[in-house]
Structures are given as C-alpha cells and as structure tokens.
C-alpha cells in the first residue's frame, strides 16, 4: 500500500476516536445537573437583561427539552462552530474558545522547546551510552534515566526552584526567574496587546520576529527552568529506549558484515547502527508527549505560566469557593485530546515514511 493511502486510512481512523472523545466530554457534562450547567454559563455579575439573554443561549446550547441523541448532535454542531461555552475564574473569564486561543500557543511553545531540547540531548547521549554497553558511562546513564523517569515532576520543579531560583538558592540575584513568562510589567511594547504578544502569542518568537532581542533574552530566561523540568522525564524515557535500540542493533548480522568488509568504526556507528536504532524511538515520542502534556499542567501551575494547563486547572480550582467551571474542564480536555491525537497522527505518518515496511 502506498503512503498516500496509509495517511488517508489513518485520518479515517481518527474520526471514531474524535467522536468518542466528544461523547466522553458530553457524558461528563451531562453528569452535572442541568440547572448548574446553565448557572455555569451565565455571568453572574452581568446585568439582569444580559443574564436573561445568556440563559437563553445556554438553553439553546444544551438543547434542553430535546432527546439525548439530539442533544449530542447539537453539542457537536456547537463545537464545530467554536462554541465551547463560558467560564469565569480568577485566571480567565469569558468564552472558553477565546481562552484556549490565547493560551494554547504558549503551551505549544513550551512543548516544542521541550521536545527539541530533549531530542537534541538524547540522540548524542544515547549513541554514546549505547555504543559502550556495561561500562561506567552506561551504568551512570541508566541510573540517571531510571531516577528521572520515576521522579515526580512537581517535586523536580520545586527542587530546581530551590537550587537555581532567583533570590532563593545559592545563586542569589544571579539565579533564574521562577515565575511568569517575562512580559514587561512597566514599559509599553508595541506588539503586546492586552497582555498577549502578537501575532503568534509566543513571547520569545514574537520578540525575535520584531527584532526586540533584549526582551527575547528575558523570555528565554523564563523558559529555561520549565523546559528543563519537563525535558528531564522525556529525556530519561528516550535515553532508555535509544540505548536499548543501539545494543539490539549492534548484535545484528549486517553490522558484523559491515565491520567485516572494513567499514570504519565511526561509520558503522553513525550510519549502520544509529540510523536503525533511532527508528523505533520515533514511536515512543507519541507516548512521551502524552506524559508531557500532563506535566505541562503541573509546570504551568508551579511556574505561573499562562498556558492551556493553567487554564484547565483554573476551571477546576481557580475560582472563589471552588465553583467548578464545567465548560472550561470539557473544553480544555477536548483540546488536550486534539493535540495528542494530532501528535500521534504525525508520529505514525513519520514512522511509516521512515520505515517502508510499516503499513498497517
């Protein structure tokens, strides 16, 4: 089967999963009494007339009075039109979809930086360790990956803050900032509108695009500790996998052949062993990103970063008297699921592209 058909098939499989995801959020929402869902949609601080309008909107959105399958259909149509309901919390108030639009880019920035950093470290390190099995370097690497794989992310973040934090750890005033993304608090910057940078909403990339390098440096400084925290667990997982792949591949017959016909050892390592050993590691990235997205919630909470994870947590615990914002919970779940589904799609396609034998 050609790659083209494989991609089409893979996209078609996505449809039942996406429907299932929608059904799950629908069931979660319907586990809540309808009156609470309506109260959740309405801004209680608005004028009575405005509240009456919002109440009507909520009733239309929920499809109250219709049979349940009809309600599910209305729910899907609403989501396809970008109507995810409203949420009111200390962190963000307004339509959920606008909140996601504002905060998703930062989460993507954090995730992409993390994946890049960990892959860039893991490949050379994994090659180095995997080419010397059962040496001191190998054992050190294995112990390292074991410890960081089992380490609670929130604890690692706090310890990094204790050690490298500005005005906390031994580095004193030269330490790294431990909260926020580095948005300037006093001076006015042209491309920052309503506290969000334009056009990509990622402060580092935007400031580079506008040629504001001091601000880019500040933004980068604020990213170091969160990225370090998140990449440790991914790095540990990747390292384990690459090492195992290297050791496995090194025992193959064709490696012996390559050595026997006189290929230099460096070439054997780089071209024959590593290329084949890295192939299965591509599949793990999808799994690791799933863990990473969970970690994003924790890290954004600890480092006070304004991303999707913080938004999802704000919907749960970020309101006065813990008034849970159900639309916020359902909307953020949907988007986390969407990111993960797309990541898995990309991973599968890349894998099929790299390994022509794979066509499911």
């Amino acid at each position: 089967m050609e790659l083209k058909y494989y991609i089409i098939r893979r996209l078609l499989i996505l449809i039942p999963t996406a429907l299932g995801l929608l059904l799950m959020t629908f069931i979660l929402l319907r586990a809540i009494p309808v009156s609470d869902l309506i109260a959740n949609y309405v801004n209680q601080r608005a004028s009575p007339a405005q509240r009456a309008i919002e109440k009507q909107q909520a009733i239309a959105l929920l499809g109250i009075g219709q049979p349940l399958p009809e309600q599910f259909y209305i729910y899907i149509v609403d989501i396809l039109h970008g109507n995810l309901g409203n949420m009111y919390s200390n962190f963000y108030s307004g339509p959920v979809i606008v909140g996601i639009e504002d905060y998703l880019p930062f989460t993507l920035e954090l995730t992409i930086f993390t994946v890049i950093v960990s892959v860039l470290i893991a490949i050379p390190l994994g090659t180095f360790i995997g080419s010397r099995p059962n040496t001191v370097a190998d054992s050190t690497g294995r112990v390292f990956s074991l410890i960081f794989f089992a380490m609670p992310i929130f604890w690692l973040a706090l310890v990094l803050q204790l050690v490298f934090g500005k005005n906390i750890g031994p580095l004193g005033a030269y330490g790294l900032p431990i909260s926020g993304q580095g948005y300037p608090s006093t001076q006015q910057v042209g491309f920052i509108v309503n506290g969000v940078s334009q056009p990509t909403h990622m402060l580092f990339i935007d400031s580079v695009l506008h040629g504001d390098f001091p601000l880019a440096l500040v933004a980068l400084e604020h990213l170091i500790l969160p990225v370090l925290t998140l990449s440790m667990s991914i790095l540990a997982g990747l390292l384990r996998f690459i090492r195992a792949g290297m050791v496995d591949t090194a025992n193959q017959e064709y490696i012996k052949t390559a050595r026997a016909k006189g290929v230099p050892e460096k070439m054997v390592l780089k071209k024959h062993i590593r290329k084949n050993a890295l192939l299965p590691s591509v599949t793990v990235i999808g799994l690791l990103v799933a863990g990473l997205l969970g970690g994003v919630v924790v890290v954004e909470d600890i480092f006070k970063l304004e991303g999707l994870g913080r938004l999802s947590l704000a919907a749960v615990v970020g309101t006065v008297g813990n008034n849970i914002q159900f639309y916020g919970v359902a909307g953020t779940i949907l988007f986390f699921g969407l990111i993960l589904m797309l990541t898995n799609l990309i991973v599968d396609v890349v894998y099929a592209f790299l390994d022509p034998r794979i066509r499911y």
Partner: protein
Amino acid sequence: MQTTISIFKKGAVQRKRHPKVEDMIETLKLIIKNKVAMTGLVITMTYMILALLDVIYPAYLGYGPNIITSLPQLLPPGTPLGEQLPTPPTFANGWHYWFGTTVGAYPLFPAILASLRIDLGYSLVIVLTGAIVGIFVGTFSGYFGGFWDELMMRITDVFYSIPFLVMAIAFTTILSYSLLQDHVPVNGFNLVALALIIIWWPTYARLTRSITLSLKSSRFIEAAVASGSSRIRNVVTHIIPGVLSPVFVQISLDLGSIVLVFATLEFLGLGAIIQINSYTPELGNLITIGQAYLVTGDWWPIFIPGVFLLIFTVGINIFGDGMRDVLDPKMRR
C-alpha cells in the same frame, strides 16, 4: 543404617512431581539471583511493611489513630506555641524531629511514615481493581472478537487520546461534584481512587487483549476446543493464567506511577474539591504545604517527602524491570 538411606531414596523417587510449583521455585531463584530486582524488592517491601504496620498497630508512631490532630502537639519542651514556622532537621529533640517540622509545627518524619499507608494502600487498590477489570475485558473481548471487541478497543482508544493527568483531574472533579449533588457521602480519597480506576483499566485491557490474540491460535487452545471445552471455560482456565505474568510486571510498574499521580493530584489543589483536611498525611500534600516556605529557602518540607516518594518509585520500577527480565521466557535461560 543402610536400610534407612534406601527407604529415604525410595520415597524420594515415588514423590509426585508438581511442574507448576517447580516453575515457581525456579522463578523465585532467578529473582533472588537478580541483584537489581532484589534491591527493588527490598525497598518496596520496607515501604509496604511500614504501611502495614500503620494498619495493624497504629500506635507504633507513639500516637494512635488520630495522628493528624495529635502530631502538632509534639512540640519539644520549651517551644513557644504561637510559633508556627518550620524548624530545620535536628537530632537533638528525639526521632520525631530528625527531618524537622513543617507548617504548624508538624513533625515531618512521623507524618511521612503515616502517609505511606494512604499512598500505598490506595495505589494498590487502584492498580489491582484496574487490572482485574482490564483482564476480564481484554481476554473476553480478545477471545470472542466481533462487535464487542471492536467497541471495547474504540473505547480504550478514547481513553488513550487524552493525557492521563488531565483526565484524572476532570474525572475527579466532575465525579465529586455530581456525587455531592446527589447527596452520596464519599470519602475524598475513595473518590480519587474511583476516578483513577475508571481511567486505568484500558491499559490492562489492551495488554491482555494483545496476548489473548496470540494465545488464541496456539495448539493447546485448539486441543481444548477439540475436547469440547466451552469458550468461557477456555478463557477462564487457559487464557487468563497465560496473561497473568505480563500483567504482574505491568502492575509493579504502575504502582509507582499511580503513587505519583495520586500525589500530583493532591499537589494541584484537588484536596479542596474532594474535601480533604489540608494536614492529611499524604506525600503530595506534605510537599504542597511545604511549598509555602519555598521563598524563604526552607528546603526540608519540600525535599524530604519528595525523596521518600522518589525512593519508592525508583524501587518499584527496578523491581518491575527485573521481574520482566525474569518472567520473559525468551530471556530466561
């Protein structure tokens, strides 16, 4: 003398052989030989014994079941009661203070020991229940195939398409809210456990299903079918014993992850939603209450409970890895 020896030998020859028992003894020997797995086992067992001790003999810490309320009263003589700041680790005031105190003059060492029961107990319940549900769903849907199999696999797909922690947060909050509205009294930790079981079984369903599919085409199942054994009997007596050893490895690896998820949920502030006392001894909670003193650079309320958590997860992980090596028939001899 001669006769006794010969009788003994005769008895030994006639003794009935038990292949299953011999296999288990062989496995045990391999585990004992594997030093890494043994280290993991020793760490895990130490934690388990400490946790069990808290159930069997709650007064072993010196204070009965109401440890939450009684711990802050353990101030060393001469400490002003108004002072609530954490004190650093010291060996001067007895073993309670070896790790210092945290918020509210709450000594850390006994609090950590008391928290093992909640952390380990709940994660055992979650993992075992999830495994049992997953085994039944996975083996039956894998063996019977058809519509239900397809449906079950699509359901697990959905569970796999959401990051675990995000789903755990959502399920816990919505379950707690909807149970509260229905006036169902549930203990907060039980609620978290329930939410985690709901989202944990798909791992086991997938694992056991894939093994079932490969076992299904093997000769001994064919033989069982030929001898007239029913499909349900086949699954229960032939397939389920076959999937147990990989499931056991997965259980030991998952125990660590569940402890982490449990602590993370507490850390993220879900304790307020599931209505748990903020002084409840639970490792994630202990780290959370210590976080207030981060800015002053007080390291011990955060660092020490985390190290305890880390040692357990590392221990159970190396035990699981070792078990995988031992139980994998290909790597065995």
